[in-house]
């Protein structure tokens, strides 16, 4: 099956026909021309970093850190082992875009990583792929074999004396391994427990060597930037928010799925692309950047454009670009209960505030949902969440706290109703109908 045609796409463009993931199809679409251009024209790493800086490309993994700046942190003066690592451990609830890059366009990621290797003087790279999409890990290994056979990775690439080899590593069911230092621990064959920072991976990363980690979609943007220039990429989006972004839209829309649109596109346009609200029902709330981002009420969301700055001004985060849409049939307490369960389940257990606090959060939301809430629970919840955020080694603690704080902030009356009446404002059969098994849009 193919990715749907989308005229605005650059990362998921031209993916018609079968086997779009194979090297032959990729090369027909102009694939590996950016790597070739760099090596044949002798473009220097400094020139490439300058181009990436001009592009206003911001990391697509969640934090939106400027990629050009991140790349400039890598020590380049001394020859030593250095690594480039791709984060395809996509496990942030609501996010399923890297999957489509790996499914339809894995060579784009390989080319982006090879260019990164050239820029930062790395001779080796790893792509860490979420265990749950195991067939795409296997596909990526096949794509690597193709790239190696064609001379785009390996020794003396394109006869230009540049060596860079790339391998795939699979996860096996641990959300925390999406956190970059947990991911490095995991490649090193350990439990995925995040490291203290500093030192940052750019000085002490994989096997203790300088390492740059980027998200799959970040690497995928690089070849286009090289081919078309940083300014052109920037111009696709808006200032400080360059390029297109792939949004994963889930929840109560008519056509959940993956949509690549320019940053700065109005949310209302994205919603239209998804076929609008399911059953014509009313929009209630949106989590705009993956489950760790604060929830926003529907009316605030309708005034936002889809870019880092607009969503942040509205009080949330663009995060991984995972847009979770909830309509009027949704119980906010039940929704928060499920998210809180997730963070409790996935806490690696290293830091006490997160290990214990996520359990507290879950149990309290659970009891409110099940009619056993107490009037002071809401303040206690807010308090516990505040005591986790900022007090842990990694941001999973914050990720657990943000949903709790934002759900209560924007939907407090619904929580109070639960506590007082021991049940939801939305009748259970209405909730069930709204979230029934919905596969009508599927091309299966």
């Amino acid at each position, binding site marked *: 099956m193919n990715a749907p045609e989308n005229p605005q796409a650059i990362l998921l463009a031209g993916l018609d026909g079968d086997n779009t993931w194979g090297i032959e199809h990729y090369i027909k679409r102009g694939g590996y021309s950016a790597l070739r251009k760099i090596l044949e024209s002798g473009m220097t790493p400094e020139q490439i970093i300058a181009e990436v800086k001009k592009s206003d490309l911001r990391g697509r993994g969640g934090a939106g850190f400027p990629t050009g700046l991140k790349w400039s942190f890598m020590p380049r003066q001394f020859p030593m082992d250095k690594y480039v690592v791709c984060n395809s451990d996509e496990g942030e609830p609501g996010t*399923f875009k890297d999957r489509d890059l790996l499914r339809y366009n894995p060579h784009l990621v390989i080319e982006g990583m090879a260019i990164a290797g050239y820029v930062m003087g790395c001779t080796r790279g790893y792509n860490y792929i979420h*265990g*749950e999409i195991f067939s795409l890990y296997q596909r990526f290994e096949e794509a690597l074999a193709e790239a190696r056979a064609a001379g785009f990775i390996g020794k003396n690439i394109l006869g230009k004396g540049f060596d860079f080899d790339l391998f795939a590593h699979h996860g096996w069911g641990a959300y925390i391994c999406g956190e970059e230092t947990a991911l490095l621990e995991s490649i090193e*064959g350990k439990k995925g427990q995040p490291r203290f920072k500093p030192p940052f991976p750019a000085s002490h990363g994989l096997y203790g060597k300088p390492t740059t980690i980027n998200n799959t979609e970040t690497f995928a943007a690089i070849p286009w930037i090289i081919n078309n220039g940083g300014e052109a990429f920037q111009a696709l989006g808006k200032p400080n928010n360059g390029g297109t972004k792939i949004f*994963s839209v889930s929840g*109560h829309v008519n056509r959940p799925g993956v949509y690549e649109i320019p940053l700065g596109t109005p949310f209302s346009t994205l919603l239209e692309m998804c076929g609008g609200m399911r059953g014509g029902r009313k929009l209630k709330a949106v989590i705009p950047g993956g489950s760790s981002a604060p929830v926003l009420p529907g009316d605030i969301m309708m005034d936002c454009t889809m870019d880092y700055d607009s969503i942040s001004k509205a009080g949330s985060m663009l995060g991984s670009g995972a847009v979770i849409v*909830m309509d009027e049939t949704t119980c906010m307490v039940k929704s928060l209960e499920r998210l809180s369960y997730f963070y409790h389940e996935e806490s690696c257990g290293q830091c006490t505030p997160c290990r214990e606090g996520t359990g507290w959060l879950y149990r309290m939301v659970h009891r409110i949902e099940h009619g056993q809430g107490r009037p002071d629970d809401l303040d206690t919840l807010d308090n516990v969440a505040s005591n986790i955020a900022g007090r842990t080694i990694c941001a999973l603690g914050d990720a657990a706290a943000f949903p709790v704080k934002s759900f209560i902030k924007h939907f407090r009356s619904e929580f109070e109703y639960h506590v007082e009446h021991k049940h939801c404002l939305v009748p259970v059969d209405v909730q069930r109908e709204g979230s029934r098994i919905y*596969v009508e849009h599927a091309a299966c």
Partner: protein
Amino acid sequence: MTFSLNEASRAAIDREVAKYPEGQAISAVMAGLRIAQEQNGWLTPEAIEAVATHLNIPPMAAMEVATFYNMYDVKPVGRWKITVCTNLPCALSGGEQAAEYVKEKLGIGFNETTADGRFTLKEGECMGVCGDAPAIIVNNTRLCSWMSREKIDALLDELK
């Protein structure tokens, strides 16, 4: 229960070891445990130890990894492990109701195995395929998308 890695498993693990720098065979422990689990159905302490021995790492290092990551089964599971994602994005499109339906059909709850040893049911966390909700993974590697009641019926019938 004795366990030894068969030749295919050993070769597969050696291919994994080759991906990592000299002296970092331990990096292949995740793949090694996955391969041993595929061979044996679940990871007995002996299977974990066999992987450790093959990689020349302390058995406890392999045990730590096996017990940290959710997709390793360190307790017996049925022939078919059915994992249904019920996290919020999936639940909004029926993930939870799909799980209820599977429970009803199999007569078991999460983390239980049918009496005939055929099925184990697990509650999944986000599999990174939320647009395909309801999503089910069979035995860790086979992803089934858009699982309506009819497709669940067909899937369970097919898995003997």
